[in-house]
């Protein structure tokens, strides 16, 4: 059985030499940017959508129906904190009714056991709960919320009681990376079937806090070795997903599976983005679900067309053997670090700007976090 599914259902090359249009697999539904926590590594943009601009229940239901029609298989209910929406149960039911796989991505703060029971009844398929550290005081400090740790433990227990699969998401950075083994132990103790060792990526609030978050090369090396050991030790008990953190890598990540290729993101106010950081690239025109059908946006939105396929690439990406594997890395990161969204992601060792990343990876500042607040 092959990994990374999604055969290209639509093979037609569009008129005018446009890039081949794939069918998206996943939709990230940012239901709200409200969140009680203030994690300094949050990937939400600095300019958070106000509550007054949030899409209503019916609009989300329509978006899900259109997503299913487009071939989307999985909806990731996220935010901010999706539990902040009073209509979370109705929203989840609407996604389930379209036959979509529903994944709730939550801090656990804002979701009661009673709500989780109702979500289970509505067919919720999976829950992902974040943990900020293995120890309570540190975890609450990183989250900027006292009591978060306890709430996560409690909700995890309910998820497991309901027999919904649980993934623990652990964003790793300088303050907790040395506790990796303990964090995996915690994930196991919580009954998770998967743990994501999600090294911080520098967008939005994480970019603002980069030097406070950046691990040292030695820490990253040790973390990688620990992950390998733990995978051997816990084989068959828990799946440990981990990727080398960008700034310490030689090859770039295939960001979002390629621009406008496998996933899309709908913001709380209804803007559709090829990725959660796309608004950081100047000159892109984004369309809203308030004005366009999702299929129209996917195929024709200028923002989606901007870097779809490979025609936009320059050297060394254009003739690179890995061109269709990592798509030149991340556009948003290329822009953030070089000022040019078409540049090779400087994470790539072949990028002319690779030394930028190497320099930044060596910057560790023990400064207070700028907590994510609306």
């Amino acid at each position: 059985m092959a990994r990374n599914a999604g055969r290209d259902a639509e093979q037609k090359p569009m008129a005018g030499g446009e890039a081949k249009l794939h069918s998206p697999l996943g939709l990230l539904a940012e239901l709200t940017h409200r969140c009680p926590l203030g994690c300094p590594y949050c990937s939400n943009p600095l300019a958070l959508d106000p509550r007054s601009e949030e899409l209503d229940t019916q609009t989300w239901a329509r978006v899900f129906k259109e997503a299913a029609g487009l071939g989307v298989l999985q909806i990731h209910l996220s935010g901010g904190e999706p539990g902040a929406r009073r209509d979370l149960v109705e929203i989840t039911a609407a996604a389930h009714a379209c036959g979509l796989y529903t994944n709730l991505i939550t801090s656990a703060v804002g979701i009661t056991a009673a709500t989780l029971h109702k979500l289970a009844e509505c067919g919720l398929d999976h829950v992902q709960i974040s943990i900020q550290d293995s120890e309570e005081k540190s975890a609450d400090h990183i989250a900027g919320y006292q009591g978060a740790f306890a709430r996560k433990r409690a909700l995890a227990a309910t998820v497991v009681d309901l027999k919904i699969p649980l993934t623990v998401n652990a964003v790793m950075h300088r303050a907790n990376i040395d506790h990796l083994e303990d964090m995996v132990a915690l994930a196991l103790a919580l009954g998770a079937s998967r743990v994501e060792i999600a090294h911080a990526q520098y967008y939005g609030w994480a970019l603002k806090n980069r030097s406070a978050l950046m691990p040292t090369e030695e820490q990253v090396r040790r973390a990688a070795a620990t992950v390998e050991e733990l995978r051997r030790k816990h084989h068959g008990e828990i799946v440990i997903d981990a990727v080398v953190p960008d700034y310490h890598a030689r090859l770039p990540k295939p960001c979002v599976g390629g621009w406008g290729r496998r996933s899309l993101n709908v913001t709380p106010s209804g803007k559709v983005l090829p990725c959660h950081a796309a608004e950081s690239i100047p000159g892109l025109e984004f369309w809203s679900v308030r004005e366009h059908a999702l299929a129209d946006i996917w195929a024709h939105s200028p923002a989606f067309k901007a870097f779809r396929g490979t025609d936009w690439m320059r050297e060394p990406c254009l003739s690179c053997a890995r061109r269709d594997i990592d798509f030149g890395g991340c556009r948003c990161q290329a822009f953030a670090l070089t000022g040019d969204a078409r540049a090779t992601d400087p994470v790539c060792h072949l990028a002319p700007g690779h030394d930028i990343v190497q320099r930044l990876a060596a910057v560790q500042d023990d400064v207070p976090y700028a907590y994510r607040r609306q």
Partner: protein
Amino acid sequence: MNEAASVIAPDARPRLPRGVRLVHNEAQGGWVLLAPERVFKADAISVEVLKRCTGEATFAAIIDDLATAFKAPRERIQADVTTMLRGLADKRLLEL
């Protein structure tokens, strides 16, 4: 991997747990296995195996059924299906 780990008890009742779904999707061109934050493309043989993993049929009965359906030697089917199901179980995508 030791011998015991690669054997599935004949009376085991394999089933896809909650949160792992085998679905047919036109737009994606066929059968897919939906799992926590990943999607697997399921080829025709995988589909025949997974369709039978309902928690009702025993592993032995599933193998018998497949051997008949594919007109193939039982030992061969058992070996291949054991590898496949063990792989999924190791990823917590199947209960045995």
